């Protein structure tokens, strides 16, 4: 099995990995970073969203070997120790989840949005989250959480 070196959450990992292994498989099964979820396996649900060099990517559409040399961030790498990322804090504060399955992908997508657009409008948030499906709560609290998280990322209260 060939060796592959991945930078994930500011750490370097060397894993055994075939060229056909998906990034999400490497993250979950080799690195045991199971916060990144697989909902559909067909690039629709967005539960597997991670950041590759800062941009949100569905990690089931990418091979692990393609990520070599890139800086990958998963939901586990977002918090600073015990201190939640402002977007995570906003999801908690505004109850932007019910079962929680879609939440890691929602949070990762939202962080990417709010890095690109400092104060996104509600329609911008809804458009941006088209690629992330929630099957429990509907999207109302999620959108509220993302708007608050955007404030939090700009130094306001999440």
């Amino acid at each position: 099995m060939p060796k592959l070196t991945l930078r994930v959450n500011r750490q370097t990992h060397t894993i055994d990995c075939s060229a056909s292994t998906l990034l999400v498989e490497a993250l979950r099964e080799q690195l045991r970073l199971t916060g990144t979820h697989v909902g559909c396996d067909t690039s629709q649900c967005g539960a597997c969203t991670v950041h590759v060099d800062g941009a949100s990517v569905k990690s089931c559409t990418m091979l692990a070997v393609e990520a070599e040399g890139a800086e990958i961030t998963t939901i586990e790498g977002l918090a600073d120790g015990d201190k939640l990322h402002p977007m995570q804090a906003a999801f908690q504060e505004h109850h932007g989840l019910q079962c929680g399955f879609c939440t890691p992908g929602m949070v990762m997508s939202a962080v990417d949005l709010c890095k690109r657009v400092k104060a996104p409008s509600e329609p911008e948030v809804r458009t941006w989250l088209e690629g992330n499906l929630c099957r429990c709560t509907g999207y109302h609290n999620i959108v509220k959480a993302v708007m608050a998280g955007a404030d939090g990322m700009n130094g306001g209260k999440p």
Partner: protein
Amino acid sequence: MTAYVRPADLAEATRVLADHPAWMILAGGTDLMVHAQHQPVPVGILDLWRLPGLGGIDARQRDDRSWLRLGAGTTWREVIADARVQHALPNLVAAAREIGALQIQARGTIGGNLGTSSPVGDSLPVWLALGAEIELRSVHGTRTVPYADYCTGYRKTARGVEELITAVWAPVPATGTRLHWRKVGTRKAQSISKVMAAAALALDGDTITAARIGLGAVADRPIRATAIEAALVGRRLGDDAIAAARAALAIAPITDVRSTAAYRHDVAANLIARFVAA
């Protein structure tokens, strides 16, 4: 064990493909990865993602015409953001906005959609309506093929096994040309198309002087509605053109898990009717 090569430039990419024509050619992977899990593991993967020489959108002159040359590695997000494309090819931008969602638009590429050549490929009817040409390159040289001759059957194309799709050449439509796009699916975001239609209409006042119409998801490949195109010439926008278009629609879509033949037929007729409304 699957081999994996990320070439440094186009020359290396075409050499690798000449040596290994059966390898999987990977661009953004947004479609390929979904299918790959249900297919035999490929012998090798030629990864074209961010390959220098495959990106970029340039204005070009050729055959006394103005063209936009869009590199095959251009992502949908790059198409949407490009001011020249927004201005000259708004129906391509409209199609790009409805491909998957933002994460897919960030990885999916022009060349990938052409390579997969699905009958429901969202960008493909636009190339028919625009009269675009596909640039193919191998170690033996470069050629361009009109899109109408490129897709030859269900997921079959004129691309030789040693050829890479390197760009699309889209002629810049004459000023005043009306460009249209519409996709109908189960839901607005992220759905696989039931019917797609794209059109370019040249007008003299409100009389149609030329029409090109591309349809998707109504046949085994993207098709031109040539009978409607002919019937529309000389018709006035509005009831005159709508009646002519409806009478000339000749498609035989299939019934499948996503839709019925009758629904696809009627929706295709309605989309074209809207395009030629007053």
